[in-house]
């Protein structure tokens, strides 16, 4: 995970909100550049998180060949 503690899902949802802002009535050209920079950073963070996370595979020790 990248420096912040946000999950990938949180970051993806944050990015979606930023993208929605560009189509919303709140859009102003003055704020657009800042928002764009935030979106760019989130995209880089998400890519970093997704590529660095590894799966943890555990083989259960219990034997299933009998009821015990």
């Amino acid at each position, binding site marked *: 995970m990248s420096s912040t503690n946000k999950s*990938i*899902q949180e970051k*993806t949802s944050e*990015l*979606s909100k930023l*993208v929605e802002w*560009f*189509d919303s009535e709140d*859009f102003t*050209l003055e704020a*657009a*550049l800042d928002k*764009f920079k935030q*979106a*760019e950073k*989130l*995209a880089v963070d*998400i*890519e970093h998180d*997704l*590529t*660095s*996370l*590894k*799966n*943890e*595979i*555990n*083989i*259960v020790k*219990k034997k*299933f*060949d009998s*009821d015990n």
Partner: protein
Amino acid sequence: MEKSKNQPIFSVSDFIAVVNQTFEYAYPNIEVEGEVSSFKVNQGKFIFFDIKDSGGSVGCFMTVWQLRTPIEDGMKVIVSAVPKLTQWGKFSLTVKSVRPSGEGALKKSFELLKAKLEAEGLFALDRKRQLPTSPQHIAVISSTQAAGYADFIKIINDRWGGLKVDVAHVQVQGTGAPDQIIRAINYFNQQESLPEVIVVIRGGGSADDLAAFNDELLVRAIATSRIPTLVGVGHETDESLADLVADVRAATPSNAAQILVPDKNEIIRAVHVQVSSLLPRIMQLIDQQKQLIMERLYSVIEVIERAVDERVVQLSSLRSVLLQLNPNTVLARGYAIVKGIIKTGSMIEIETNKAILKAEVINVINK
């Protein structure tokens, strides 16, 4: 036991007991293949049938709970049994398990059980639960030595990260497989921290190899799992009852991995596309603003131009009025200007368009 000329004399009960001990010693478990006939269920608990071939017939006995796959007269089966002489002197096989033998019997058994479970509503769409879109903890039931398992893990690792995968290594074919898979399902369902999905996978194989996934108790265990289930058994064309009862069916183990987790590469691509679509959006909005400003400017210019035009028209009309009022214009129309005192005998000046005349007033007649 008495003895007669070195020959033991048994009571009937002892003889039966000795015969059964001999059977148990000689044949602790035998498998017999043959065709089912005279199949019947007594009191909903006990099953009796004969197993026969062209040369003979043997009676079989078992309980309904031991019958894991439906059978009927004419089906070829393999019974796993212990030979027994009953107290009435009848020889029979006490059956521990029955499995269909041959493609036709497997198919018939599959269809019978499918119809039964379908009638109970086990395959109904409204029973199906959705799988979480991005699970964090999953359980996998498979043989860790199977190719299908290796495919599944490879694709999971290629597509997603951060997943906790608990794997129950079980037999995925043969008579012991259904019970092992059932135990693994129960094991995961009893965990304190429940996995979000149970995935049951097995690669392709013959109809006999895949028969374990048509076991009635296994199908019911999948149906009653409180954890949603994803089953990917065999190839795309294979259909098992475990597939039908699962919340989600995958065509293959690889397909199960694709269904289970999103593809991180697609997400990364989509995220960058989302962001790069913002810049043209900003540029488009700047262009729109520019256009709006230009339109407003043009409309202001238009208002000014219209006002100027109106003034020009006004001036022109005033000019023409002024022109009409010009004494020279009046003179040009033939009128004359008379200057001086108008009385008889006085001298006056008369100005016409072309000359100025001096004249004497001869007579004045008032109008």
